[in-house]
């Protein structure tokens, strides 16, 4: 059996009298893509927030590759291979498309302030390498690395958001509504990229309301209802 990349056990999230998550349990192995489904307010985004480290759960355990993530800050989790896309793309308008992509690789690169400022050869090599990888992903998703990130149309922003997540060779993909606002053609291209990454050994959790697109990708589905598990099982 392929190693479990993500294990969520009894995850609870309560704040201000609201129970966003009241006990969520599931696991995802390498090479698996789980469709996280449920109506609005079911807690899907909360699960992604807890795993990515944006929010601290009230109870429960999250393990990444066997390692307990309790107390591990978000940036460190990214370094461990967690890549998350946001519903509203976190595109950095001051950078070009390539720059945004390279942000996805941030934790895999090492150059610090001085190395970057003085253009050390190690830093330059690292950058060139990263740019090559980023260019490949950009091409796969129909993006131009040299284009300005500001002013991209909505679909392109979603593709950029996904590309950034993929650029870091993630072990775990957390995709929050990646297909929202994209055309059928874009969805095809994005799905292909996600599938390729998952087949390469990554685990993926996808939240989206485009059920046909998501279920075509997914090997399993997990359903939430008001913060709790509804059913789990193989995709039909």
């Amino acid at each position: 059996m392929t190693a479990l990349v993500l294990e969520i056990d009894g995850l609870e999230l309560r704040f201000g009298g609201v129970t966003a998550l009241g006990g969520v349990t599931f696991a995802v192995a390498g090479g698996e893509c789980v469709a996280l489904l449920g109506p609005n307010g079911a807690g899907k985004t909360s699960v992604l927030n807890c795993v990515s480290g944006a929010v601290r759960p009230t109870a429960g355990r999250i393990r990444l590759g066997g390692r307990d993530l309790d107390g591990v800050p978000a940036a460190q989790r990214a370094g461990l291979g967690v890549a998350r896309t946001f519903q509203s793309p976190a595109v950095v308008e001051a950078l070009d498309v390539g720059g945004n992509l390279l942000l996805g690789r941030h934790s895999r690169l090492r150059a610090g302030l001085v190395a970057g400022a003085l253009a050390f050869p190690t830093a330059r090599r690292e950058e060139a390498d990263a740019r090559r990888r980023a260019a490949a992903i950009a091409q796969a998703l129909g993006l131009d690395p040299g284009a300005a990130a500001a002013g991209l149309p909505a679909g392109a922003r979603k593709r950029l958001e996904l590309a950034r997540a993929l650029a870091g060779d993630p072990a775990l993909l957390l995709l929050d509504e990646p297909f929202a606002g994209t055309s059928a053609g874009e969805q095809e291209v994005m799905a292909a990229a996600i599938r390729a990454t998952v087949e390469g050994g990554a685990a993926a959790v996808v939240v989206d309301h485009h059920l046909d697109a998501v279920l075509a990708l997914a090997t399993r589905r997990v359903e939430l209802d008001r913060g709790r598990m509804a059913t789990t099982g193989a995709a039909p």
Partner: protein
Amino acid sequence: MRRWSLTAALAAVAAYLVLPLTVDDYWLAVLNLAGIAAIGALGLDLLTGRTGLLSLGHAAFLGAGAYTAAAVGGPFPLWLAAAGLVGAALGLAAAPFAVRLRGHTLAIVTLALVFVGQHVFREWTSVTGGNAGRSDLPAVGLPGTHDQGWFWLVWALVAATLLVVGNVARSRTGRAMAAVRSDEAAAAVMGVDVARTKAAAFVASGVLAAAAGALYGSYRQYVGPEDWGLLVSVQYLAMVLIGGMATLAGPVLGALFVTALPHVVDVVVETGPASGVTAAQVTQLVFGLLLVVVVMAEPRGLAALAARARCNGRRSPRVEQGCA
């Protein structure tokens, strides 16, 4: 980054070499002060323009650099490097505040830096000369007259600073800075160490500010605590804002603009006892009004205006050409 055409580069080098031989000392001095300010402004832009950390404390770093140069003395590379190191250390000391505080609180806290800084500058008389200041700053042996030699030195340093800051902007750290400015929480999820990035921004800004302060002191051969007040911090912020944040040309254009302003006012406006207003009053009034007008009218500053003029007619989404 824009590629300079060969002709533009040659023109720049030619201007650099020839200007001091043709321009009179008065305006040469203005250009020298502007160049020194440009170095400081490029530093502040890394902090405020690129990382989004509003700092009113820049004057304190400038002063620290100047007094370090005075205290260390010796050959030029030594005191400049010493000033840079002190600037870096102070930047590092300021970093924990940036990490813990939200933008508005940070702004007030950096205000505190200026006041505490001036207080230290006034009290630590053994190093700073107290209220009387210091006039024994190290000089630099340069060809030509004082202003000519300094022009060549300063603007060579500006070019070097542009190179370094450009490198930072294109580097991993530069991307992290932009991400932090855009959305700190999202940046963290992407893997950016926000605390470290903010510290890097303060350190880089501190180094350049201290270097600028040291150069200022050596050039003018005098520094006093009144040189490092809140108004100076505001002027530097204005350079960054008016020039254009997160650009290379912006801080330089802004520095030229703000430095030249009082001199231009002097030439254009009738001041003195007869008219009832002083040149300083008119300058400050114009400065204040301009700040408001620029913020409201062209938030992307002079650099954007220049870019627009250059791009007129060209429609290209490519960032390299600077035409949005």
